[in-house]
């Protein structure tokens, strides 16, 4: 549709405001089952071969697949900002690059304005790309230091044969002022600008071809707080002025809360929860989202007592845990159905199992361990027998065998290790869809 627009209408003052973004429209972008695996034979990732897997077992997997993004589906509505948040390495940038087809997906489809990008030929895809721009994290390296600011902003227009020289320059100057820079800076080199200003140049460049959709991959992560606020405000204003749709990627939950309309949380290559912003922050359902929210430091000393701590490390994406990928760290891992345990008993068993599996022991005595982990909550029955066996193995100084035994008895049979979760939640805030990949929702559905 942008093709019918006058590209000379540099700033889109008229018409294309966010008002066009009424809900119920077809989504601007739809991602279905998107998957990207990387072949792990490149040298720079070779450290992964000596990493340990989820349960602390060394992984010796040379030419294996890095499961960077797996089976991700969502929609982005016209005019909205979808925030994508997750820890380093969870696959945010890979997802962004795959959905823009800067790299080919291993599986899955991306529909932009109704067209499947995979089915578009070279030229048609190229034209579509004009409507989808990306801004990267590092404002330093994404700007060619030898070029002047004006030509940098004009570059995408040249690539897409937009306007003539004069028109492009006029538009570049206009855009510079739109992003809050002095149009006089047209002839300056990027080094003469601060980080926040370089990010504005990036914005101007991305907007030059009048895109509908802009992927912002950590655009403010390298900036100081006071400068970040300037850039975030500018991005918001431009969104309204240009009727833009954003996919905004960040590891910073505060920034995501500020900028987004809806939020997707990623963990180890998968989207684990997706909901309207207010719903996600005020009624988070996935234990990982809850842990993330708990662990952010709040800039207020009167609120700081509440910070929670998530145990363990993110497992390797080469052999991610079966079932729910968060299960190796989840504080709420569900007890296997075959044991009849109280919550307190299961909490003790889970803590003990994690400890043996993760850390190993220098065995003290059984009595000490019993006291430390179980006190008077020691379960009997089949669970008790499984624990007895583990203690015997620990006593025999076979901690690995004990770990295996506990894993087989208490983790593998859990639904969390056996089935991939995918549930819909009744939202408490607003009426948007609330997706949550956690089996705890199964109980909710049963009791409703």
């Amino acid at each position: 549709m942008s093709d019918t627009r006058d590209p000379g209408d540099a700033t889109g003052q008229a018409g294309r405001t966010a008002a066009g973004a009424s809900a119920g429209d077809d989504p601007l972008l739809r991602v279905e089952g998107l998957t990207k695996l990387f072949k792990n034979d490149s040298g720079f990732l070779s450290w992964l071969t000596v990493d340990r897997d989820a349960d602390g077992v060394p992984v010796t997997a040379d030419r294996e697949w890095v499961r960077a993004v797996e089976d991700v589906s969502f929609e982005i509505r016209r005019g909205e900002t979808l925030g994508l948040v997750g820890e380093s390495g969870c696959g945010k940038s890979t997802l962004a690059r795959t959905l823009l087809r800067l790299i080919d997906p291993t599986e899955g489809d991306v529909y932009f304005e109704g067209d499947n990008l995979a089915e578009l030929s070279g030229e048609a895809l190229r034209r579509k790309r004009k409507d989808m721009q990306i801004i990267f994290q590092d404002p330093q390296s994404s700007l060619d230091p030898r070029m002047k600011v004006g030509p940098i902003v004009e570059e995408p227009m040249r690539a897409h044969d937009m306007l003539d020289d004069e028109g492009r320059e006029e538009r570049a100057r206009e855009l510079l002022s739109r992003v809050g820079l002095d149009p006089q800076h047209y002839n300056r080199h990027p080094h003469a600008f601060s980080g926040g200003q370089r990010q504005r140049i990036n914005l101007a460049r991305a907007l030059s071809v009048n895109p509908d959709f802009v992927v912002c991959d950590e655009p403010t992560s390298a900036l100081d707080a006071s400068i970040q606020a300037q850039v975030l405000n500018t991005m918001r204003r431009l969104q309204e002025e240009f009727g833009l749709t954003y996919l905004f990627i960040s590891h910073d939950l505060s920034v995501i809360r500020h900028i987004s309309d809806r939020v997707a949380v990623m963990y180890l290559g998968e989207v684990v929860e997706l909901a309207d912003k207010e719903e996600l922050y005020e009624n988070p359902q996935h234990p990982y989202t809850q842990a993330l929210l708990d662990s952010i430091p709040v800039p207020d000393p009167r609120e700081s007592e509440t910070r929670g701590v998530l145990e363990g490390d993110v497992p390797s994406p080469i052999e991610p845990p079966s079932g729910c990928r968060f299960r190796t760290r989840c504080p709420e891992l569900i007890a296997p159905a075959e044991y009849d345990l109280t919550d307190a008993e299961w909490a003790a068993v889970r803590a003990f199992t994690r400890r043996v599996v993760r850390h190993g022991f220098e065995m003290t005595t059984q009595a000490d361990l019993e006291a430390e982990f179980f006190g008077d909550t020691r379960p009997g029955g089949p669970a008790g027998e499984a624990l007895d066996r583990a203690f015997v193995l620990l006593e025999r100084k076979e901690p690995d065998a004990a770990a295996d035994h506990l894993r087989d008895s208490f983790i593998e049979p859990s639904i969390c290790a056996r089935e991939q979760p995918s549930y819909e939640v009744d939202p408490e805030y607003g009426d948007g869809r609330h997706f949550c990949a956690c089996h705890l929702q199964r109980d909710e559905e049963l009791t409703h």
Partner: protein
Amino acid sequence: MTDPILEVRDLQTHFFTADGVVRAVDGVSFEVYEEEIVGIVGESGAGKSVAAASIMRLVEDPGEVVGGEVSFKGEPIVEFEETEAGTRRPTDAMLSNREMRERIRGREIAIIFQDPMESLNPVFTVGGQLREFIEINRDVGESEAREIAVEMLREVGIPEPRERLDDYPHQFSGGMRQRVLIAMALSCEPSLIIADEPTTALDVTVEGQILEQVADLQEKYGTSFIWVTHDLGVVAEICDRVNVMYLGQMAEQAAVDALFHDTRHPYTDALLDSLPRPDRTVEELRPIAGVMPEAINPPSGCRFHTRCPDAREVCRQVNPDARDVSESDERPHRAACLKHEDVFHEDYWSSPPIDNETDSGFAVGRTDAGGSGDE
């Protein structure tokens, strides 16, 4: 209150570059008491790292500590005297480089850097490096040092520490490497640890784990910390007292609760206003206008006057030092701002206001490097 273990008075550290003198730290004073965590917070380029390095006497060329005093448990780490010619020279009592190396660094004051690979050698095992460090600094034999190393790694939360001694640094995740450095710093039971943004590059969950561990260890060993960060969330969480730096100088110094809830300096105020919050939706962020000027050519008067929403003409002329502006029944609360007229006695309130553009438009200043006139 007892005497501080570290006292910094009017510290000045400058870099003598081809372009001129960079006044990275320009008259900074603060102190650290026993068993407390003191924050140094400020934006990039404020001089936090240079201040930290100066205390350890680790400033590299072309930088030099050119003035002020640093005294640690009464010993002069930095001390100057006037010569007859009117220049400054280090006093005879000032600790020699050798004394710094052999008695102070590592043993009494340890430092943890933002990038752990700066301190860990990639070609030696983690256990080997830790053991050697302990051997040298604690005068123990190899096997005892090894045991201490295992114990310290366990303390900082490394799983299966004995098995991991023979791993190389690249086999550890970023968070684990940072834990190793904390283990190393703690292993000699120093009185003071200077941590320069040790968790800035880490994910929040990992940062949370490490901060919790540090709080526990701090309690157990009674170590004092200087915690350098730009993250006010981290400051709120772990610091007892906070120093806010702006462009080489102290803007505000207060107990953590007072800094956040009884803010006395416009810069701190503006910084807090510019933050998006994790715990509530902030509709409108209020950024600070412009950028921090370069330390090579700082503004006249109050260094914040080019961006300060409360700036008045007098702020262009007078550069306030951080003075106690607390009420008589409060803990000391220092602020370098002329608004506190009863303390600074400049006619602030009758001076005409300066209109600093708060919009993020053209008024956004260029960096100084931009003055190359290529247009």
